[in-house]
């Protein structure tokens, strides 16, 4: 991933997460976005009419309903899905004649294949909330929606600044985060989850310097977290975790402090919706301190701010 620059002929230039400069002569009007969270960003920017292709993940059960609310083309499955986070169809992508493809930076072979057809590719790799801000800023430049991008970023930063003052804590509770793959799959210190926990005024009990890590049950018992927080899980719920006999002596189980984020779309940590997850976690950690925060009101306000009028449909 070296730095590469484009010529001065392009009026629009951004540097993607590979360090590669992307140049466009005019704002992209035919975008294929193969990243679900990235698509959410494009809808926030009001750039939905510039989207001509999406990831097949959009049509999955966990988020399809919300995206169908945002876009009738998705509701009636009319928006082509030429790939996803793993596999892509070069033929379908080329046939759609996009002027920009947004894709995960880890899909290196797919990126190479697309670029060989002369199609500009913006590659994304998110490790922090600052990366989320950069992504939306770059999307704003690439779609000609700079002002909207700045407005969204300012709103989110203000939300976080206000809240982080409130959540500052001298004796933070320890949180064990559980990804949906299973009890032993967690997030280390170099992850958006770690930032989420710290912004909520708590501390991540997993101090391993990795983004995603599989631990041993013994680690979990040693860490003895105050809370176990589950990412949205279609298969198991907090009751299942509370019934695990081998971890019954840790504080989170003894005190019945196991919680689950209710929806992938609502709490997506790779979008500007992450402050809602921060507030939800803070309320779980310190219920009396944040008892005045009404999560339903917060959710409704966020949807309107981020998605404009269409946010009303999401609220319904």
């Amino acid at each position, binding site marked *: 991933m070296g730095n590469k620059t484009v010529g001065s002929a392009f009026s629009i230039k951004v540097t993607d997460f590979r360090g590669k400069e992307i140049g466009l002569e005019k704002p992209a009007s035919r975008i294929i976005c193969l990243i679900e969270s990235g698509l959410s960003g494009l809808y926030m920017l009001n750039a939905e009419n510039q989207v001509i292709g999406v990831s097949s*993940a959009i049509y*999955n059960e*966990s988020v399809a309903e919300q995206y169908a609310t945002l876009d009738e083309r998705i509701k009636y499955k009319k928006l082509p899905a030429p790939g996803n*986070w*793993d*596999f892509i169809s070069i033929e379908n992508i080329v046939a759609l004649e996009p002027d920009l493809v947004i894709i995960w930076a880890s899909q290196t072979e797919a990126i190479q294949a697309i670029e060989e057809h002369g199609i500009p590719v913006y590659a994304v790799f998110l490790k922090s909330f600052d990366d989320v801000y950069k992504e939306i800023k770059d999307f704003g430049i690439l779609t000609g929606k700079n002002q909207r991008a700045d407005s969204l970023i300012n709103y989110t930063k203000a939300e976080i600044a206000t809240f982080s003052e409130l959540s500052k804590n001298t004796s933070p509770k320890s949180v064990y985060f559980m*990804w*949906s*793959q*299973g*009890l*032993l*799959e967690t997030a280390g210190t170099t992850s958006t989850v770690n930032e989420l926990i710290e912004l909520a005024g708590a501390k991540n009990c997993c101090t*391993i310097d*990795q983004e*995603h*890590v*599989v*631990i*041993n*049950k*013994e*680690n979990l*018992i*040693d860490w*003895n977290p105050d809370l176990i927080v589950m*990412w949205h899980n*279609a*298969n198991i719920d907090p009751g299942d975790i509370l019934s695990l*006999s*081998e*971890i*019954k*002596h*840790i504080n989170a189980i003894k005190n019945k402090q196991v919680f689950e984020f209710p929806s992938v779309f609502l709490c997506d940590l790779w979008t500007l919706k992450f402050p809602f997850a921060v507030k939800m976690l803070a309320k779980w950690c310190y219920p009396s301190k944040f008892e005045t925060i009404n999560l339903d009101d917060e959710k409704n306000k966020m949807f309107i701010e981020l998605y404009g009028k269409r946010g009303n449909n999401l609220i319904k």
Partner: protein
Amino acid sequence: MNKRILKILIFALPLPVILASMFIGPSQTASPKALYNFIFSNSLSPELLQSVLFGVRLPRILLTFITGGTLAVSGCSIQAIFRNPLTDPYILGLSAGAAFGAALALAFFFIPVQLSAFLFGLLAVGSSYFMARKNKNVSIISLILSGIVVSGIFTALLTIVQYYTDPFKLQSIVHWTMGNLHNANWSKLQSSIVPVTIGITVLFFYRWRLNVLALGDDEARTAGINPDKDKLIILVAATLASSSVVAVAGVIGLYGLIVPHMVRMMFGPDNAQSIPLNFFFGGMFLLIIDNFSRTISGFELPIGAFTMLLGAPFFIFLLKKTNIGWDK
């Protein structure tokens, strides 16, 4: 080393290794120092200590031992009846079928992962057997070929499931196929113990016949043995036992192939001796490997990688030191 002493060691060492493994693990709550403090100053929460030792470590240790022993015994039996040193319990599609079953359950949650892996593992082996059966006879070559085809079909189906699943579920599937011992618990051990006991007991009682079957069908008939019937019984027993452990421990690649060779290199080709030796050596060796995999770093490394990284050098060492005549 004298073979007799080595044999005594293989039968005697598992218990000390199991006991020593109880004191090996990433937890500081149950480290040797913490245990010393607990015994002499009672400065530790007995509840947490009990959770680590008996809720987490012991079921994993026992499941690992049983998994290693079962794969080794099944591999030894299958190599004998197939008269082929390159076969293992997975040759008839067991691992591919089980992996597909687990992936299907992980992706769509229709039945428990363990049950799905077990059923699809059996289905794959059963399919291989019936595909190879012709005029009430099953030739070894047909069986191996149908096993390869069935493995290919289930691998293709696994790819399709992976294609349609999301990144979270895909990661679970990949972790499962790399060995899944970190999720060991008492209920997994309980669910596998009955089929494993049945399978291993049958193989233990048939261990003498394996020597005759390994000579060929005509020789077996001369000795008064019905080779087709005996092979089927051994195949069913080996499949039942190994599919039960694969269902709970995931796919531990090549273990059922290399351990029988290690035992053969140490003690010779007598299957009557090899069956119990394979169980104890296979169980103990996998336990030692798992002790590395759960302590070498702060997080879990897949045991499937360690079996080859640690097993292969030992295998090559034995290959160089012994002359079993495979190159002739």
